[in-house]
């Protein structure tokens, strides 16, 4: 179990390092880390399927302006690992992943609000000295430090917890797992609502319903919707540019011909 726990924690460490330190920004998404956990624990197919399941649950859950609603990476890694080790179905895995993803947020906050800021004064001093090599070194060290705390927590959780979690999952009544399934079905809405809130503009809000209807009545795939949306935006842009020119022209003629302007105003 200690080896399995180490491998699972390693998936977290590597995926976060790749994501923040090497710029493959979505390497830490459920759809990617699920299969990685599966691969290392010897059940790739389950990993891929659970990764996809969790991706659709956590799809809306993204970091916006520093407020992360749930840590999709931690939730997926622990949920997938427990599901493969203990051998539970997707719904029970979800009942693990959702609460764990919320605990993951706390660990993430400790990392970004306490752990890394501890080194800010040192880095500031390095910059003030004009020490380029030092600054490069510190940035790299921070990238190494960033995933460490959560990785250790994952290691301990899998190492000490996976046996008892199996027994625990047998104990909990079915309405609780059912409840988590329902919560999982509602969870993407939180992320989408956050995104909506960020982009909110009264003038374009109606387009939300256009997208909604394109799926529920027309059953269009996302790519088709994205293309239609882009066509909309482009044509609207040119139309508004055209109107601007027309307006400017009208304004120019109107000021010359005062009588006509009076006529329009009537």
């Amino acid at each position, binding site marked *: 179990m200690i080896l399995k726990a180490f491998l699972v924690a390693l998936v977290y460490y590597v995926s976060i390092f790749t994501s923040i330190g090497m710029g493959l920004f979505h390497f830490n998404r459920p759809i990617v880390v699920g299969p990685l956990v599966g691969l290392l624990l010897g059940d790739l197919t389950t990993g891929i399927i659970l990764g996809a399941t969790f991706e659709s649950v956590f799809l809306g859950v993204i970091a916006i302006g520093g407020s992360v609603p749930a840590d999709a990476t931690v939730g997926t890694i622990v949920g997938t690992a427990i599901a493969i080790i203990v051998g539970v179905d997707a719904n029970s895995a979800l009942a693990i992943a959702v609460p764990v993803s919320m605990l993951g947020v706390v660990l993430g906050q400790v990392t970004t609000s306490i752990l890394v800021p501890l080194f800010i004064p040192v880095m500031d001093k390095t910059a003030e000295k004009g020490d380029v090599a030092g600054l490069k070194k510190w940035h790299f060290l921070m990238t190494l430090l960033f995933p460490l705390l959560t990785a250790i927590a994952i290691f301990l959780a899998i190492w000490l917890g996976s046996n008892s979690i199996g027994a625990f999952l047998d104990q909990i009544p079915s309405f609780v797992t059912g409840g988590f399934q329902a919560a999982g079905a509602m969870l993407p809405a939180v992320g989408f609502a956050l995104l909506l809130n960020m982009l909110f503009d009264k003038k374009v809000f109606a387009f939300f319903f*256009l*997208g*909604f209807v394109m799926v529920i009545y027309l059953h269009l795939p*996302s790519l088709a919707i994205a293309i239609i949306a882009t066509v909309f935006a482009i044509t609207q842009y040119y139309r508004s540019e055209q109107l601007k020119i027309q307006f400017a022209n009208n304004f120019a003629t109107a000021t010359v011909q005062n009588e006509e302007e009076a006529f329009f105003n009537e």
Partner: protein
Amino acid sequence: MSKSKVNLSQDEVKMLKKMYIQSWRLFGSFNMAKMQGYGYAQAMIPAIETFHKGPEEKKNALVRSASFFNCTYETAPFIMGINASLEKARSEHSDFDSDSINAVKASLMGPLSGIGDSIFWGTVRLIAASIGIPLAMTGNILGPILFLLIYHLPSAYTRYKLLYVGYTTGEQFLTTAFKSGAFENITYYASMIGMIMIGAMTAQFVGIKTVISIAMGSGETLVLQTILDNIMPSILPLTVMLTIFYLIRKKIKISTLLLGIILFGIFGAFLGIF
């Protein structure tokens, strides 16, 4: 962008290449105090080393580059490009006010994040996920691979392009963009696309259903979900989504919302609603 090819010196081309590679590490030391500040500095180091030879200038430029920074990953290189062109101007004209460099940085972060988030987080990521998820659901390894490719190829290209455009046409862009309202324009049309995608995603991925059914005597049962589907498919997801959106507008904390949703789910399952 510009048809007349700007002539870059050998050094500048080399510098931009280095900046591009370093820009991939933007989030490396992310924290709540300076956000991506030191990650941004990594990308600026090649420019600082190219333009500032004097130790004093170099120090100042390093400190300047490591100030607070937070921007969408894909649009940040545009600011890096403009910043590099300003560092060049600073190295050539000693009367160039260095404070204006950070002012430019600060004023560009917000608008560019808005554009970047709606295009990359709101649209490209969702397209990548909606192609990857169905494949992966069947256990196909192409699911995650396609997801990564569909997101990261446009992402990599955009960052490369924006870095060059920012560097070559940066100053000229700045003087016209704010005057002509180009930012408001791009943000407006980008959020239009974003809105449509969020609406579509709500219908595709918020999957809440009710299992309530009422026995109607004479052996018939009334299934509530069927009635709801007849009124409008996905009416429950829409209601859930708009309720959460309303609560977010009312400044309810996200953690409270999440806990509430879980309790609501468990309570609902207990009562036999879900």
